């Protein structure tokens, strides 16, 4: 059964790329003016970002309510070798044959907002294959499925917060946000910190993608410096001789609240 995304997306229109790009530009222009007038730079995507049509009915309209973190919020679930097998970080060896595409290694570190490594924590990734197709029943893009590539990986970070995945470079793929819409190539990342309030899911992009300017998901981050933080760097030191090209991408979570709150309590 094919899924008609227009019924999933009541707000979707037949807008053109020009329409979407114009909407993005005007939101970004307002942001630039606010920056010039001294407003603090934004670091996260807007959840209310109309050029991404599916966000229209799926974002809170009220401001987030400030909470002082308590007990359970200051801790995170524990994952480890019991949860994840070492081979799960290699997405190219999950089947009998070699997947088709450009073999790459993506590695980096998971840090918290204080620059401390997040050690022994779970990192999950998922992605499209070298043709831009996901192994997902709702992906109707008429590009080939690769029988040797699922596109799912997991790992546990090392003592210095380091992680490394061996995979295939994903391709861009079309989607139904507007007419002729294409996502820049990306790998989805899911991350945990030392406090559950640091939980995040994001997307890693590849340097120089010509689709960046056109993509309302990437451009929902209004600040250029913040957008750049989602783009990996080509890294010759990760590249290995006659085997795979390498990319580096470090991820910074929000700040832990446990450490400073405990220290403060100790002073009482």
């Amino acid at each position, binding site marked *: 059964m094919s899924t008609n995304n227009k019924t999933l997306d009541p707000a979707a229109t037949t807008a053109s790329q020009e329409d979407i790009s114009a909407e993005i530009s005007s939101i970004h222009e307002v942001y630039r003016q606010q920056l010039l007038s001294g407003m603090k730079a934004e670091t996260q995507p807007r*959840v209310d970002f109309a050029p991404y049509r599916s966000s229209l009915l*799926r974002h*809170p309209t009220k401001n987030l*309510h400030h909470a002082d973190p308590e007990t359970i919020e200051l801790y995170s679930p524990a994952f480890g070798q019991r949860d994840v097998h070492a081979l799960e970080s290699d997405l190219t060896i999950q089947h009998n044959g070699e997947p088709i595409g450009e073999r790459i290694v993506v590695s980096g570190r998971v840090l918290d907002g204080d620059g401390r490594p997040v050690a022994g924590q779970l990192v999950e990734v998922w992605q499209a294959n070298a043709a831009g197709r996901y192994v997902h029943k709702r992906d109707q893009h008429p590009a080939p499925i690769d029988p040797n590539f699922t596109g799912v990986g997991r790992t546990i970070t090392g003592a210095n917060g380091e992680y490394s995945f061996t995979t295939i470079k994903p391709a861009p793929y079309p989607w139904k946000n507007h007419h002729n819409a294409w996502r820049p190539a990306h790998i989805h990342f899911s991350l945990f910190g030392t406090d559950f309030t640091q939980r995040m899911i994001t997307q890693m992009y590849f340097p120089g993608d010509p689709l960046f300017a056109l993509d309302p998901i990437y451009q929902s981050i209004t600040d250029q410096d913040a957008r750049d933080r989602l783009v990996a760097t080509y890294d010759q030191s990760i590249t290995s001789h006659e085997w795979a090209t390498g990319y580096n991408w470090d991820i910074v979570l929000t700040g832990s609240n446990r450490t400073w709150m405990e220290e403060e309590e100790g002073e009482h």
Partner: protein
Amino acid sequence: MAQAPELKLVPTPGQTIGPFYGYALPFAKDNELVNQAHPNSVRLHGVVYDGKGEAIPDALLEIWQADEAGNIVSEQGSLVRDGYTFTGWGRTAVDNVGHYTFTTVNPGATEEGKAPFIMLTVFARGLLNRLFTRIYLPEDTAALANDPLLASLTDAERKTLIATREADGSLRLDIHLQGKEETVFLSYPRES
């Protein structure tokens, strides 16, 4: 509470979970913090709605909670459940009609007199960054009345965070990403 110290590094931006997580993030028994056969097992369930009141069929939820005695556990094994170890964490994708279910236990108070709650994180296609909220147990009304977060909310807002106890012992809480009954979503210190 004192001022939280400044961050040294700028956090990486979040992005939407997108539509295609279904073959990647769910896993066997992901929503079973305890086995249904556990003598004190409780069903926590509800529906995730959009701003038009329509159920969202492509959201993923995670909960994180203390055990029945109020202890915060640090046990591996969430992804490969053995049916005996309580890890305190669970994940579930909503079904085609936006309904989610976890099998868990009532969390105990983590400190004497505190209102027990379950931490909830919401991801969805169309939602550009994750949302955090709390699911409070309805029973300890004195503790609920003294809870600092609940005290800072209007009656209507408070209702969005307190689960209903159903006749069979289940906990029910619907999530509204937008609209008249919009759930109160939380921010914490040191996010930027």
